[in-house]
Every structure is written in structure tokens, then in C-alpha cells.
């Protein structure tokens, strides 16, 4: 078991190393001189040279890569060209809000996707199945940025049911200031018992989280359905039927747990995907997460920031996969034996 863990960790480390190298290479290919971008359009040659030296742009590429890796490891993710602050600080500020949004979306997706998948599997081949399959295909086909605009126009500005944008009513910072620990507003508000900010945050979360949940709900429903159907065709399901259990019981009480394994791996995949998809949603709802930071970085060709965002999301993805592998051990005892 621990050998499996070590091998798995080694694999993850290898992937992270590859990710860092690839990111470095891509960032070196970005047109334009980062020194110029940093020093500004009116920089003197001396300022430019200083900037070049600061970014180590005069060293040979392998040396630059080595320095880059060394800096990353020691927590120096470089300085953003557009905010002029350490990229790491920027990411720490922006990421919790993104995490909050993505987590909310995934909660919705799991809470809706799995029951829908079960229902579809239960009524396989009949109308409920077809309609669930078609709507989940629709959900994975919708361009999020467009859906975000549409929902915002209809439900916020049209019907006025939800706030237009933002993470919470910023006026509340005055009347009931939030003490931050994790920087995830909903979590901090919950643990410090700051109900005004908590309810406001949840209210603001509804639309963006729903939009962002569309894709994961669709794929989770489809995957749950497929995995359940596969699982319910196995010998053990026949055995459970022969023990007198009905179809619904076989699906939910017996087949669902082994079927969750592929669904879980899918969730890890969808988690990272949703962070990036969230960039597009955040822009529309002005959610103060990584999205705005990333789009600003792209607009200004801010290579250290783009690299930071890329590395962070890729690293999260690797971590999520690792976590899922471990979780699968909890769900499926067979995996523990590997």
C-alpha cells in the first residue's frame, strides 16, 4: 500500500516537473520583451537593463529554467507585470474566491448530477432517461459565457431575483465587517457567525454557481448513468436481485457505491476544468477570483502572472487526482489492496 503511495507520489512529482518545464517554455515563447512590459514604454536603456537583470533574461535558457524552478520551490513565483506585486500574493488573494465559486458549482453538480444519473439508469430507455440524457447533453453543450450573460440579463436585471454582480454586498464591510481566516468569504462568514455576509454571499453565488454547474452536472449525470448501468449488469447486481431487492434498491443501495469510482475521477477532472471555465463566468458576474486576474494578465501579456495561474491550476489538478486516488480507497476496498 505504501509502495503504491510512493509510486503514485513519484508519478505526480514527475508530472509537476513536466508541467513546470512546459509552462516555462511557453512563457519564453511569448512575444514581446517582459522587461519592456515591466519597465514601461518610456523606460531608459538603463532601466531596461535593470529589468532584464531582475528577471534574469540575459542568462542562458537552461539556467533560467533552473532559477525559475528554484524560485518556485522557495515560494517566489515572480512579480506580476501588471499589478507589480508578487504573483504568489496575487494568487492567494484571488484564488479563494474562485475556489468558493467552483466548490459551490461542484456541490450543485454532484447534488443534481448523481440523482439525475440514477433516475436515468433506473428508467433506462424510457422517456425520463431520454429527457435526462438530452438535457445533460444540452448542459455540456452550452457556452458558459453566453449562458452567464443570458441568466444575468433575465434573472438579475430583468426579474431582479438575484444580485447583478459581485461576491457579496460590499456595504456589509461597514456594518458587519468580516474577519478573514481562509479568505474564502462564505467559509469565514460561516465560522465567525457573520450571517449578513454569509446570506449575501450565498445569494450572490446562486447564478454564477448555477452557470458554472451546468457542464459538471451534465457530465456527472451521464457518467453516473453509464457507470450504474454497467454496474447493474454485473454478477453482484443479479445476486442482489436474486436476494429480493428491487431495481431501485439495487441501483441506489448496491450499484451506486462501486459506480461512484469513475464518477469521482471525473469530478477531479471537472474541478480543474471548472476553475478555467469559471474565468469566463467570473468575468460576467464580476466575481473577484482568478478569472479577472487571468484575463487582465492575458490582456497585458503578463507572463509571470499567466505562468502563475497556469501552474496553480495544473498543480491543483494533479493534487485533485491524487486525492481522488486516495478517496477511491475509501469508497472501493479493492483499490486499497493495490
Amino acid at each position, binding site marked *: 500500500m505504501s509502495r503504491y503511495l510512493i509510486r503514485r507520489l513519484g508519478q505526480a512529482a514527475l508530472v509537476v516537473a513536466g508541467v513546470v518545464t512546459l509552462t516555462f517554455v511557453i512563457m519564453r515563447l511569448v512575444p*514581446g520583451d517582459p522587461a519592456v512590459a515591466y519597465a514601461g514604454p*518610456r523606460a531608459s536603456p538603463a532601466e531596461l537593463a535593470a529589468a532584464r537583470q531582475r528577471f534574469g533574461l540575459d542568462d542562458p535558457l537552461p539556467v533560467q529554467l533552473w532559477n525559475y524552478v528554484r524560485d518556485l520551490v522557495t515560494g517566489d513565483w515572480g512579480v506580476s507585470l501588471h499589478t507589480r506585486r508578487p504573483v504568489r500574493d496575487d494568487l492567494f*488573494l484571488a484564488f479563494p474566491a474562485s475556489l468558493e465559486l467552483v466548490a459551490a458549482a461542484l456541490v450543485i453538480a454532484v447534488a443534481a448530477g448523481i440523482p439525475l444519473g440514477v433516475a436515468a439508469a433506473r428508467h433506462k430507455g424510457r422517456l425520463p432517461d431520454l429527457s435526462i440524457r438530452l438535457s445533460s447533453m444540452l448542459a455540456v453543450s452550452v457556452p458558459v459565457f453566453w449562458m452567464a450573460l443570458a441568466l444575468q440579463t433575465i434573472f438579475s436585471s430583468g426579474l431582479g431575483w438575484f444580485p447583478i454582480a459581485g461576491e457579496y454586498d*460590499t*456595504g456589509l464591510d461597514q456594518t458587519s*465587517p468580516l*474577519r478573514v481566516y481562509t479568505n*474564502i468569504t462564505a467559509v469565514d462568514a460561516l465560522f465567525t457567525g457573520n450571517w449578513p455576509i454569509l446570506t449575501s454571499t450565498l445569494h450572490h453565488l446562486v447564478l454564477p454557481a448555477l452557470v458554472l454547474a451546468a457542464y459538471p452536472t451534465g457530465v456527472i449525470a451521464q457518467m453516473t448513468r453509464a457507470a450504474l448501468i454497467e454496474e447493474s449488469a454485473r454478477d453482484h447486481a443479479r445476486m442482489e436481485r436474486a436476494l429480493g431487492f428491487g431495481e431501485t434498491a439495487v441501483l441506489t443501495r448496491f450499484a451506486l457505491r462501486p459506480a461512484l469510482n469513475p464518477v469521482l475521477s471525473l469530478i477531479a477532472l471537472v474541478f480543474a476544468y471548472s476553475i478555467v471555465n469559471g474565468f469566463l463566468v467570473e468575468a460576467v458576474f464580476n466575481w473577484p477570483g482568478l478569472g479577472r486576474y487571468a484575463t487582465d494578465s492575458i490582456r497585458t*501579456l503578463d507572463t509571470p502572472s499567466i505562468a502563475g495561474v497556469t501552474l496553480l491550476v495544473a498543480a491543483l489538478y494533479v493534487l485533485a487526482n491524487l486525492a481522488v486516488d486516495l478517496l477511491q480507497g*475509501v469508497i472501493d476496498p479493492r483499490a486499497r489492496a493495490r
Partner: protein
Amino acid sequence: MRWHKRLLAAGAVAALTLTATACGGGKIRGGADGSEGSTQPGTSQNAQNPSSAADATFVYVPNLDVVTDWDPASSYSNEILAMQNIYESLTRYNPQTKQAEPRLATSWTSSDDGKKWTFTLRQGATFHTGKPVDAAAAKAAIERTMKMGAGAAYIWDAVKKIEAKDSSTLKFTLKYPTALDLVASAGYASYVYDTTAAGSGDLKTWFGEGHDAGSGPYTIDTWEKGKETELTLKAFDDYWGGWDGPRYKKIAYRVTPELTTAWQLLRGGEVTFVARLNPQLFAEAGGTPTVQAAQTPSFQNLLTLFNTHSGPLKDVRLRQALQKAIDYDGVVAVLKGAGAPAAGLVPEGLLGHNAGQTPRQDLAGAEALLKEAGYGPGGKKLELTLTYAQGDSDQEVLVTLLSSTLDKLNVKLSAKPLQWTTQWDQAKAKDPAKRQDILVMYWWPDYADAFSWFVNIFRSEDPISFNLSYLRDDAIDKRINELPQLTATDRDAAEKAYAELQNKIINERAAVAVPYVMNYQRAFAKSVQGYVDNPAYPNVVFVHDLKPGA
């Protein structure tokens, strides 16, 4: 099983510690600046109701992050929105009179040759640090700015020496004649600040932590990078301008990149002022009773610079044909008020503006010129490259219309939207063959002086920096070099010189076409009284000048 649970728990703890250490643990949000005694529950006005009560909050909606650099010496970016409310310069530009007016300086004189300037400073002004604003402090601030040489510090390039004659007399000696009162009104790098604010500490670091050392009506209250309400300012009680009558006691900057969202916030009464809308939303704002809309011409115009040095456009006839091909009225029509017809290079409101030179589309003329050069319908196909700013919808409109028109004239325009650094790199390429034929970019001056367009864009330079039409003309260079002294000493002569230069550059050399001047389209709450746009300070609202109405 147990092994897994332990591992997962350890992971969760690690993640928590990571975030907790990152934010210092248990901070009050909105109190990023620990020393400034941040907000207390219930003591201040709810930002939700900007229009009520005496100490109302002015909620400004910018579409970009506000602060990248808190140092008044090097600040050269969007933080001007806040800086102009925190810091003051010696003078402030008035676009109506086209002249600098008193701010921290109450009066000034210049010598006949325009090389010696003496400013008399205001009595009773104090910095937020408590120190009085005197000539020595102003000298120290400007000298520090000059010494750092960052951002827009170049505006002081002409200054040879600064002397504090007494506590209220500041004397500048220049290397060459310059309209220093205009320089001192610049939006950036002109601030007077307390250079001793950080004590023995490093001043730049101290600024970077979110402190200020200005003399303006507001001072930093809270600053939280990356949050929606990035920055709030509060009244500086000892401001020399006083706080009589109803005034906004707080300013909040609520960053909202999406125009539609910004508009909906304003319509919903959540914010006070939206700096930028699109024409359609602006029209809607005009028809909304709780909102007022104001449109003001800016000092920012769009330039299409033609490559006079290499490629097909070396032929002046082709450049003139392009000038005639641009659908000026069409662009302005599509922009629906976001852009106004341009007359010459210098926007209205600046010395040098030339009201008569409004260009018109002339397709027949363009066709004739193309024919003469062997191109046009029936002739050779002319292939041109153009670069413009990625993500700028207004430039995109121009480019779309231009390529549509040129298509009919047998000119194939291949237009590329690029990030500025890329666009600029390509334009500066050593190999002329790699440069574009047409470059589209905005230009605006760092202080209210038309000289900026000429010295930066049309004076010969090597290596190339902003002379992106690659014009090399000794006669033009000579005239450009004469401009500062004329501006400083003889405004009428300066006016004439500007007119002549524009004729030479636009009509004779056809180095550039100016499709339109940007208009600012602001929308703000009905309750705001006394708002006047000042294009010399792009997007800045001088909040102290306003009155919160009912």
C-alpha cells in the same frame, strides 16, 4: 482505511495553514492597512445609499483594477483615479480656458525667455502626515520624482534647478524654455508629497503598503487588491479647501470590468459613477430618470500611422488615398457618440487645436490616387498590413469599416489585433520589411500640451520609439523643436506654428490620419451635483468639488 483517513486529514490541515498564513490570520476585511484605524461597525455610512445624508459615499466604478503603484513619483497608471483625490500638484489645467489654474500654487510668473519660473505656494495647506506644505517640501518631492526618473518623471526633463526661496516661494531654472505651469498640472509625476513621511524607513516601501503622504481632500482608508471594492478613501479633515456644506466624505472604487454589469449597478442605485459605458447603454442612461449622462470630448484621439519609410506606402499618393478612403462619418456613426470627428492632430481644449481641418471620406479621390500609382480597381492589387489593439472594440470598428471600403478599391487589408507590446515590438523591428504598413493606436498627452503628439510621434528618432510613421523630415523636426519656447512665451505664435505643422504632417506628408477623438460617456446618479469632466485628467472625478444632492 485508517491510513487513508489520516492522510486526508493531514492534507486538509496543510491546506488550511497555507491559506491562513497567507492572509495573516483573522484580519478584518476592509482593514488591509492595519495602522489606519479601519472600519468599525455602524460608524460609517452604508455604501449602499450613496445619495443620502451629509457624509455620503461616492462609489466610482472603474473597469480596471485601480492601484498598481502607490508611489506618487512613479505612479503612471489607473491609480490616477484615486491619486488626484489624495495628492495635489502645483497647478490644475482648465480645458475651458486652455490654461493652468491655481492648486497648491496660488500664482506664478515666468521670465520672458520662458526659462525661469517662480511659483507662490498656498498658505495653510498641510500633508496628511501633519506636516505643512511648504516650498522646501515641494522641492524635495519634485526632486525625488526627478531623481527616480520612473513613470512620467520625464515631464520635468527641462528643469535644471529648483530652489525654495522662502517657505512659500519655489523657483525653477530650466535648461530650455518650457510651459512649466502646464508641466506642473500633469496628471502624473507632478504631485507634491511629504518625502519624510516614512521617517527612517524606505519611502517607496511605505507607500507600497498602502500609505499616502498627500495634501488632497481624501486619504486612503482601506485598500484590498483584487477585491471588488478595491479601495476606499475618507475625508482628510484638515484639508485646506475645507468641508463646508454637503460633500462626499468617502470614496469607494468598485472595480467592474463588464460594462453591462456596471450599468446595471448604477441603475440599481448601488453605485454613483460609471466611468465608461458603450453608446447603447449611454443612450439608455440618458433616458433613465434616476441617472444623468454626460458626454465630453477627451484629449485622446485615434491615430492611423502610415509607414512613410518602407513598403508600398512609401508612395505619398497611396497614403493620401488611404486618408481619403477612411469612412470618417461611418466610424463616428457606429460609435454613436463614443467618438467625435477629429480636426487635425490636436483635440479640442488644447492649445494648437485646429478647428477647420475635419477630414471627409472621398472615394473618388482615393480611387484616382490609387489609379495614378497603378493600383485601384482594374489595376494591381494593393496588399497592406495593419496592426491594432486587441480587445479594443472601437478600433475594431474602424478596422472593420476600413477593410470593407478598401476591399471595393482592390486593396487587400490584412488586419491583426495584437497586444500592445507585440504590436509595438513589430513596429520597432530593425528590419523595415517586418514592420506594418499601417499602425492604429491611441495617443493622449501626459500633461495638457499638444507638444506631446509632435515630439513623440513625428520627430525623427533613432532607434524608433513612438515615431511609428517613421517620418524623417528636418524641416518638421526644426519646427517641433521651436514649439516649447513659443508656448511658454507667445501663445499666438505657438498656435500658428501648430497649424502649420499639422498641415505639413497630415496634408503634405500624409503620415497620419485621425479617424476620431474619443468622447467620454459618463453616467452617474441624479443626486450628484456639479460634475464637470476634465479631459486633462482622464477618468478622474474630483470628488471634493461635487455636492451630494437629495
